[in-house]
């Protein structure tokens, strides 16, 4: 879907992207992770052709990005806004036409989306008269109205209340089903673990890790094992961290320290009845920190 080769961008002496390579496969949700200032927004702006790269290329569907590509991309910027004094209908028509739809196509699709969200009665309302959640819906429609094949969402969940965040999530999953490729950028890594199929981590202008979530997790050994035992019959070793203790029932975290799960289980069995035993994989954030430390430029 989207291939990025050796992308470089500098603002004066500050490097925003360094030799970045990235492949976003067709369909599915691709997470672009990294702390603020890592270069995510610069990358997104280059894909959107808002700014130009210094060197390297972005290829979409086998062709270098051009003015034509814009119709295939939908972009929801991090901080959102619409023309406050403009009506819902006029606004949506304007954005669809800017994206290249004809007047009649635009009308038809806007009508369709308004009906889909059950908000056709807002047609003539101005954005300033809508609540924040309502405005967010309009903004989302404006982003997807031209049926983009690549949807770029920059921090999509920031500023949403839980109800609307869930709504947005459903909508994203729906689009994924229809074959839209979704590029999701965020610095809150825990929020995307369940949503993304693939991720790439960016730190200080460089990609430090990418792959599918499962693959990445299996690459990183579990740090510890969460277990619980009943009918505790002797004192536990000091390096096992007890999380809770209720009579003879104990929940604890066992550091792996190079032992295999079976070895640990056997060790544990001597202390009582093992009622649960589960590897705890590191979170994406922990993996990120680990990777940053490993690559030596923390």
């Amino acid at each position, binding site marked *: 879907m989207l291939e990025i080769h050796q992308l470089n961008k500098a603002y004066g002496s500050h490097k925003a992207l360094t030799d970045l390579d990235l492949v976003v496969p067709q369909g599915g949700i691709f997470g672009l992770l990294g702390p603020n200032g890592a270069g995510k927004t610069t990358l997104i702006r280059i894909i959107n052709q808002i700014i130009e790269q210094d060197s390297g290329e972005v290829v979409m569907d086998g062709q270098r990005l051009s003015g034509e590509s814009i119709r295939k*991309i939908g972009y929801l910027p991090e901080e959102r806004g619409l023309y406050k004094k403009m009506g819902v209908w006029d606004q949506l028509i304007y954005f669809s036409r*800017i994206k290249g739809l004809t007047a009649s196509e635009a009308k038809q699709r806007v009508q369709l989306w308004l009906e889909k969200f059950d908000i056709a009665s807002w047609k003539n309302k101005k954005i300033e008269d809508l609540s924040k959640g309502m405005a967010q819906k309009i903004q989302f429609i404006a982003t997807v109205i031209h049926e983009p094949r690549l949807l770029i969402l920059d921090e999509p969940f920031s500023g949403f209340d839980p109800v609307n965040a869930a709504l947005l999530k459903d909508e994203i999953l729906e689009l994924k089903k229809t074959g839209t490729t979704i590029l999701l950028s965020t610095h809150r890594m825990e929020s995307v673990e369940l949503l993304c199929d693939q991720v790439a981590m960016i730190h200080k202008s460089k990609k430090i890790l990418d792959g599918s979530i499962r693959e990445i997790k299996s690459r990183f050994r579990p740090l510890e094992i969460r277990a619980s035992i009943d009918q505790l019959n002797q004192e536990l070793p000091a390096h096992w961290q007890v999380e809770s203790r209720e009579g003879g029932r104990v929940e604890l975290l066992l550091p792996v320290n190079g032992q295999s799960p079976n070895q640990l289980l056997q060790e544990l069995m001597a202390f009582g009845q093992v009622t649960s035993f589960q590897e705890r994989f590191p979170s994406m954030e922990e993996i990120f920190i680990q990777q940053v430390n490993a690559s030596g430029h923390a």
Partner: protein
Amino acid sequence: MHKVLLVIQREYLARVKKKSFLIATLLTPLIFPAIMAVFVWIAVEEKENQSLRVIEVVDETGLFFMESSEQYAFSSSGKSLEEAKTLVNSGERYGVLYLPKMELSAPQGIQFYGMENPSTSLIGYLEGALKRKIEDQRLYAKGIDPIVLKEIRTDVKIQSLTLGEAGEEKITDATVNYAIGFLSGILIYLFIFIYGNQIMQGVIEEKSTRIVEILVSSLKPFQLMMGKIVGIGAVGLTQFLIWVLLVSTLSTVVMGVLGMQMPQQQAMEMANPELMATSPDTGQLGEILQVIHGIDFVTLVAAFVFYFLGGYLLYGALFAAVGAAVDAPSDAQQFMFPITIPLLVGYMGLFVFVLQDPGSSTSFWLSIIPLTSPIAMMGRISYGVPYWELGLSMGLLVLGFFGTTWLAAKIYRIGILMHGTKPSYKVLWKWLRSSN
């Protein structure tokens, strides 16, 4: 190109559809005549209601007889200065004019006493009257009969005409030219400021809401900027055309009602006594109409539209650049100086130099330099400007427009994507120099 049209269309419709636009467009042409009508009304009322002021004349020479006017009556009852002063204190007299014994060839020591500071018009009136009396006395002393004197006195009015190259003569009138230059200059000044500010606000809105990021992915920053400038300019032009239509319709109606009297013309003179002093007898409407007839309206209107749009476009780009450089309107102040100063220079120059002496070299330069020419040239144009000067000024304005737009586009392109940093002039300079 078609997307630029979309931007222009949006900017235009979004503003024209607003209620505030409708109200401003319909009410402004009514407000100006209304304000003028109020001035005229107040002036007329004041004149009618003014009670006659009695001034006691204490004349120690016995030579002067002051004639009463509509506003002032003079009483010469031969009282002493001290007695007269008590009359003023008791409120029976408005003031005392004291004429001591004096040498008529070098009159000195004339005084006016009053409870309040006398108006300059009263002092001027007294001075004028006394001057004439003293001159009469001295001429009489030289043996000239007062009757002969009266006969000799003549009123002079100069009718000024300009010679065209083909030898045709046109009656001109500085007052009419002044009024045209004054009005069109101010209109252009206001237009640039009001609509320039709208450009700036619009850019700031798009920047702060990040709409610009969505738009800029679909069209070039330069197209976006020009679309906005042209769209808002079209709004201004629409408003202006509606005003012209409304004012001319209104004036026709009012003129019909008042029987061929132009209320604005009169009100102008009421509000501006200076104009009154320089103007010839304004009662002769025919002559004024002839003067108006003598002005080359085709050139005037064409030049007005040109400078109107040229000035707007020249400054519009700069306003857009300022909007792009800042995050909020409150931050814009520091960058407004480079825009406000030349505009103010043009505006002040219009009054101080151009309208006073359209032919002076300062007026020439003000009307040639692109930053001030839209305002200054309008002050000269009704007096008649050589074609080569007009051509030079217009050409430079077009060049200036390209210059500021090129400059502004560089700042705009970078500025609209910058957030959170408060740029300084140094930063702007860096943006200007960056090639990409």
